[in-house]
């Protein structure tokens, strides 16, 4: 196994040759810079901009809304502002710095080509209210992406506008509701298995359904017998995540879908993990009626940066007529028409309504289309192959030092799941995760999914090299051995981060929401 820093750029420190704690006047530690709050750096009488004196202005026009005093906001110069955020960013971890193994989140490299395409003025500088004849290129890109998504999933249509995964779930369930109501058969219940994403039950409840849980089997998949036993005329549909949050493929999805359809229900598939099957499995062939695709995960648009997301929903022939407005339609002359409310009665009379003011996230569409076109059909197939191969490499490189509850049953898909079984008394998943910070990594997803005790969910993604994974695996093996052996130092990790272990309990119970008491 590779050692950390095998290049040796950091001179080895002889034991005791340099004191561990050197006090500095500033509190900075070389390139590790302390940073105060904006309120502590700035001052109300400072500004980054010179304003003209305000001419006489009749404040009475504002009535009771006129301010009595200046707002208590800090003024900062431009360099102060730039440095503040740059310094903070250096205390953070990012996908551009190293492996980001958060399971269920798909933190992978964002190809710079896609970023370049998204910044082209014809895509980046258009306005949603421009006349459609002046934005034919942008609309054409949306339409082409829609064609790709339908083809890759084997579905009938796609609603492009939803702005994130959960928004897509809502879109799918509203389609199901509209389809059932159109038949005069509104139903009450959505079934959600334990192995589904946590957002699924929330979405179903928000869409007005009663949620009933379906247990998982011992091998981490949906209990088909329990699910089919619960099916009946009150069940509107089922929401299944495939591959699921245990990193396993739901092999019985077709059987489940046939059973749900037989009682008049619909199948929603959470496609957040589509990166594990793209180019190999078409959800439409498995009987799925609606599935959202997280463009910001599978098709490599920035994820984890606070958005924006994009969650188009592919729809079966049964649900497509109910998809929301607006959508694009290529005309006989090759131009793209935007179908809005004015024309809906002619081309799309059963739409359940609309989810967004405009057409969705243009910046995400262009990144995803660039990703798809630059990979090609064969490249996309390799994406899922490499994602699954990398996850299985992590699984089999660690399953002798960490308990892998579903490891003996076979391969995983895009993420590897471990439990805390075998740790020394008093040692937890949290300790290992904090130790990973000292090793220079963002921790993996912890305590999720709930079906595994002390869960550690690792998703390496297809963009990590073998060398990068080997170093990560080396760090994980070292930490696992320390947790099993009961190394007390691990319980107080991290030791080398800008801050030591924070009191997360106190922060949650008694959060301080102001920087100083008034």
């Amino acid at each position, binding site marked *: 196994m590779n050692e950390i820093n095998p290049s040796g750029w950091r001179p080895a420190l002889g034991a005791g040759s340099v004191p561990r704690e050197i006090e500095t006047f500033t509190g900075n530690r070389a390139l590790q810079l302390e940073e105060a709050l904006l309120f502590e750096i700035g001052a109300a009488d400072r500004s980054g901009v010179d304003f003209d004196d305000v001419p006489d202005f009749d404040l009475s026009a504002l009535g009771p809304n006129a301010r009595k005093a200046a707002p208590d906001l800090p003024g900062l110069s431009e360099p102060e502002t730039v440095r503040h955020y740059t310094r903070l960013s250096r205390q953070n971890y990012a996908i551009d710095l190293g492996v980001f193994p958060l399971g269920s989140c798909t933190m992978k490299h964002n190809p710079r080509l896609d970023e370049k395409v998204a910044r082209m003025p014809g895509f980046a500088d258009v306005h949603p209210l421009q006349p459609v004849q002046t934005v034919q290129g942008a609309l054409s890109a949306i339409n082409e992406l829609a064609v790709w998504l339908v083809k890759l999933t084997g579905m009938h249509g796609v609603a492009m506008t939803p702005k994130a995964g959960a928004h897509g779930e809502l879109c799918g369930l509203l389609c199901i509701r509209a389809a059932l109501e159109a038949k005069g058969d509104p139903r009450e219940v959505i079934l959600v298995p334990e192995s589904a994403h946590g957002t699924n039950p929330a979405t179903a409840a928000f869409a007005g359904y009663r949620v009933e849980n379906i247990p998982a089997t011992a091998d981490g998949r949906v209990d088909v017998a329990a699910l089919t036993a619960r099916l009946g005329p009150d069940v509107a549909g089922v929401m299944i995540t495939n591959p699921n949050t245990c990193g396993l493929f739901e092999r019985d999805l077709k059987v489940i879908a046939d059973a749900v359809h037989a009682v008049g229900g619909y199948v929603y598939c959470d496609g957040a993990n589509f990166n594990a099957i793209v180019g190999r499995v078409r959800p439409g062939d498995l009987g799925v009626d609606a599935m959202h695709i997280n463009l910001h995960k599978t098709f490599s648009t920035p994820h984890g940066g606070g958005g924006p997301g994009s969650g188009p929903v592919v729809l079966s022939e049964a649900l497509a007529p109910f998809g929301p407005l607006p959508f694009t339609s290529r005309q006989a002359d090759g131009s793209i028409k935007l179908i809005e409310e004015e024309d809906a009665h002619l081309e799309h009379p059963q739409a359940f309504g609309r989810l967004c003011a405009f057409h969705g996230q243009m910046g995400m569409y262009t990144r995803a289309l660039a990703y798809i076109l630059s990979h090609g059909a064969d490249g996309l197939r390799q994406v899922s192959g490499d994602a699954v191969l990398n996850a299985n490499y992590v699984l089999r490189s660690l399953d002798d030092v960490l308990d892998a509850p579903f490891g003996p049953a076979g391969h995983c898909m895009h993420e590897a799941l471990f439990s805390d079984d075998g740790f020394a008394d008093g040692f937890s998943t949290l300790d290992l995760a904090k130790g990973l910070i000292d090793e220079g990594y963002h921790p993996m997803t*912890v*305590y*999720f999914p*709930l079906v595994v005790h002390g869960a550690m969910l690792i998703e390496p993604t297809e963009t990590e090299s073998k060398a990068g994974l080997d170093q990560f695996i080396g760090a994980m093996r070292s930490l696992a051995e320390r947790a099993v052996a009961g190394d007390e130092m691990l319980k107080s990790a991290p030791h080398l981060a800008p801050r030591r272990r924070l009191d*997360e*309990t106190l922060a*949650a*119970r008694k959060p301080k929401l102001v920087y100083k008491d008034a």
Partner: protein
Amino acid sequence: MTRYFTKDHEWIAVEGSEATVGITHYAQSQLGDITFVEVPAIHATVGKGDSASVVDSVKAASDVYAPVSGTVTAVNAALEDQPELVNSEAEGEGWLWKMTLSDPAELAGLMDEAAYQTFVAEL
């Protein structure tokens, strides 16, 4: 007063047609530090197995299910400021709500203390 337990790790202490409900010591030890407790509304009607309350910990947010059907008569107001009571005294001062029972026969399906301890030991 008789105390019963569920497979989902709730306890219910019954006295006549009144009962007090909470989560077990085992449940709090698995959840870790409790940070917030959402109690049901007073006068709310709950069915056996309904999600009646939510317990947030540093690890997860967990539903607490009503062990039997009935009507909520009181909630533990102390938990608003001291959710840690559920950690320190899960089966005492850390109770979640009190309720009247609409169908005392439902108690027959629950475990007694000895059966619950055996159940937990096998997890």
